[in-house]
């Protein structure tokens, strides 16, 4: 009796607090694409997005003026029908398509773009990516609070379907930038009426290939095909009727769900495959597995101010003593390519690996450089620190590099690791570790996003604490130039200084995304810039 009383009490307690979980929406599995995402999708507001999972969904909901060709990464029209630049390349005019509508039926116009940029640059909006708008006249001053003159801002709706941008300097890469989420049109009426809640399914207005049907934050997000959408290339709506994103924090759970037919894709943008499982899945699912090139580079940053890595000879010796081929074949094992330069090919301004720029594996030369630096055979070389953010994969790479440096140069390195946010702090301090790992991925496909925005001595974070005036001039000149051939040459020279003559960083490899894709998904491809072009994919049959 007592037993039942206890149970009754607990049940009652539980029952009182118990609320029902959301009802399951019946789904037709043959028409629904099921994708995992590792963490809650932070925002669907294109003006506030800065992470890959938000951008992934925003890509399906909002069109940009331009988009990228998935194979060549060349800029192609999306919301814009065409564009032109003034003779001095400081004014860009985009003519927009007239057949694109918001989900309430109102046409998408140049005024929506003008509004979006004014809103995103406003300091009160506190947009984290507002700085990509700084290339527009007057933008930086407004965002810094130095000016309130929004009429001075370099964006203007010339008429309903023509938008004009005035730039602070010539920028050949501007059309690539104009496709970024911070530049996408926004629905003023919805934002002004609902404030931060405008992205809720009941308020949101979108114009992309899909519409938001359900958003249970941190659990799932459901998109339904936009029947009114006409693709700029195919003139058709999206092929797949419904896309479900599930939040699955554990990659091994995601893999089990894929194996059980509960997910259509796992890997890459959609929850990585656990590294320990790569060998097995490659063997067991050879028809479903693939490694796709990613526009990211894994590199070791070097503290260029600290002894002994402030000596270029030491840095060159370290770089030449690392066998990148072995590293990708034995440690990372995902089809990555060894890297000796920073900008990931085939991005505009990158150097073809066949050209041999940068420092390759050459232990003999490495020992000579170290001896020239005053440490013959590693004698007298102090123990230096190699730090990585806490992760099993980074630890394995660090251990491999440690072993290579010990074997080839006779020197010792101490490996340390820190939690991500602490790590970000540590690597910006003057006493930052001698070596530290980072991975850089393209925001837009131009070397400016790499060489200028990551290592410029004053206009970037410059974690490597490196000063080189020639490099600074080269990247600045390349940014302003509109001559493609000249830009390519300038970036080539910059890569040479960064990776070869100065060895200010040590590139290790170019990333790949490892995918398992259910064979019922047809026409699938990986969009390395993020924001998958789901509108072109098709589903055939059951999983």
């Amino acid at each position, binding site marked *: 009796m*007592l*037993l039942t009383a*206890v*149970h009754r009490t*607990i*049940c009652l*307690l*539980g*029952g009182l*607090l*118990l*609320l029902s*979980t959301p009802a*399951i929406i019946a789904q037709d599995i043959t028409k629904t694409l099921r994708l995992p995402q590792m*963490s*809650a999708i*932070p*925002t669907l*507001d294109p003006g506030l997005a*800065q992470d890959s999972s938000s951008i992934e969904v925003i890509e399906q909901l909002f069109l940009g003026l331009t988009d990228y060709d998935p194979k060549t990464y060349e800029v192609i029209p999306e919301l814009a029908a065409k564009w032109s630049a003034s003779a001095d390349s400081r004014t860009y005019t985009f003519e927009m398509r007239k057949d694109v509508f918001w989900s309430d039926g109102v046409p998408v116009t140049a005024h929506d773009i003008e509004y979006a940029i004014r809103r995103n640059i406003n*300091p*009160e909006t*506190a*947009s*984290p990516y*507002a*700085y990509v708008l700084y290339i527009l006249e007057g933008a930086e001053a407004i*965002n*810094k*609070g130095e000016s309130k003159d929004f009429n001075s801002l370099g964006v203007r709706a010339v008429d309903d379907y023509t938008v004009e941008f005035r730039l602070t300097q010539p920028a050949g890469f501007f059309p690539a930038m104009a496709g970024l989420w911070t530049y996408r049109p926004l629905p003023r009426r919805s934002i002004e009426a609902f404030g*931060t*809640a405008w992205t809720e399914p009941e308020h949101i207005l979108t114009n992309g290939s899909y519409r938001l049907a359900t958003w*249970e*934050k*941190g*659990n799932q997000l459901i998109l339904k095909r936009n029947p009114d959408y006409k693709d700029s290339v195919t003139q058709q709506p999206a092929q797949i009727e419904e896309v479900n994103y599930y*939040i*699955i*924090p*554990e990659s*091994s*759970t995601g893999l*089990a*769900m894929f*194996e*059980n037919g*509960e997910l259509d894709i796992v890997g890459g943008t959609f929850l990585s495959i656990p590294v320990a499982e790569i060998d097995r899945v490659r063997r067991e699912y050879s028809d479903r597995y693939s490694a796709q090139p990613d526009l990211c580079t894994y590199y070791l940053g070097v503290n260029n101010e600290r002894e002994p890595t402030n000596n270029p000879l030491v840095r060159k010796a370290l770089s030449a003593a690392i066998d990148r081929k072995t590293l990708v074949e034995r440690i990372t094992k995902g089809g990555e390519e060894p890297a000796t330069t920073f900008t990931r090919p085939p991005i505009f301004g990158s150097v073809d690996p066949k050209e041999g720029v940068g420092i390759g594996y050459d232990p003999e030369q490495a020992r000579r450089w170290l001896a020239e630096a005053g440490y013959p055979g590693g004698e007298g070389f102090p123990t230096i620190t190699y730090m990585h953010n806490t992760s099993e994969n980074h630890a394995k790479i660090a251990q491999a590099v440690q072993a290579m440096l010990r074997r080839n140069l006779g020197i010792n390195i101490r490996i340390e690791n820190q*939690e*991500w*946010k*602490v*790590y*970000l*702090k*540590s690597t*910006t301090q003057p006493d930052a570790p001698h070596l530290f790992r*980072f991975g*850089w991925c393209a925001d837009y496909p131009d070397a400016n996003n790499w060489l200028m925005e*990551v290592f410029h001595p004053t206009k970037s*974070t410059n974690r490597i604490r490196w000063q080189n005036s020639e490099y600074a001039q080269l990247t600045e000149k390349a940014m302003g130039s509109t001559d493609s051939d000249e830009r390519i040459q300038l970036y080539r020279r910059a890569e040479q200084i960064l990776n070869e003559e100065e060895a200010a960083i040590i590139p290790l490899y170019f990333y790949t995304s490892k995918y398992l894709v259910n064979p019922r998904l047809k026409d699938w491809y990986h969009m390395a810039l993020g924001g998958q072009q789901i509108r072109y994919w098709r589903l055939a049959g059951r999983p």
Partner: protein
Amino acid sequence: MLNFLVRRLGSGALSLLVIAALVFLLLKALPGGPFDTEKSLPPEIMRNIEAYYGLDRPLWEQFVRYVGNALQGDLGVSYSQRDLPVVDLIAQRLPISLELGCYAILFGLLLGLPLGVLAAAYHNRLPDYIATLLAVLGTSIPNLALAPMLILFFGLFLKWLPIARWTTWDSKVLPTLALGLGIAAVISRLTRSSMLQIIQEDFIRTARAKGLSEVSVLGQHALRNALLPVLTIMGPILAALLTGTLVVEEIFAIPGLGSYFVTSISNRDYPVVMGIYLLYGFLIILMNTLVDILYAWADPRIRLE
């Protein structure tokens, strides 16, 4: 009783304030901020964001504002999901953690109590050995190992149950087992040992001497007394389960509070961390008070004063 409740309420409120102040200070002392990214944001953009969230004000003012707002039921908005108030976040996620926690506790009690009584009744005989073996297994296999084993066996191998997510009833079975088995083990061990102790007492001998049946002796007289230690641990277990269990929620992709808690610490999402800490503190205080009341009910010798 009323006196007791009022005193508990007072000390509880004070505890919560201390928790809030400590967590607030510790969070601010953590290296790395909520808006740090690999590509450092330009200082003016950082300033705009900090101004948006009121982080540009002095620490004491931030804390006073926080407490003031919290008293009015406003725990701020998440830094990583700007349109998501912490109160909404808790309201969405707590019920899911509660549901899972209740299932696990129920399962633990339904399995653990009878197993413990059985083991005590058949002390040093086969049922006792079997129960002990099960309990040792249950306590020594951590969730972290048990959950993937359950997924492998029932999900991938037998294909009886879905691998993960919190949707239909069948998706709730594996997480309940993963969480409940350990609890059942603890409850059965405690019940067994305290039953064994009680059985030696004089009043049990008296009950037997009166000619009561063994079921009645064990169920009515022994178990009620043996429940005290079990009740003691139920408070903290309940509070911990109700606020979500990180490992099980993570592995089964359950959108409860536990899985979000750890993410919010690594994101330095201060308002979310503060909110969950306060909730956790509140629940611990609530559960301990409830357990004290249940004590008095289970053992009339205990008086609440």
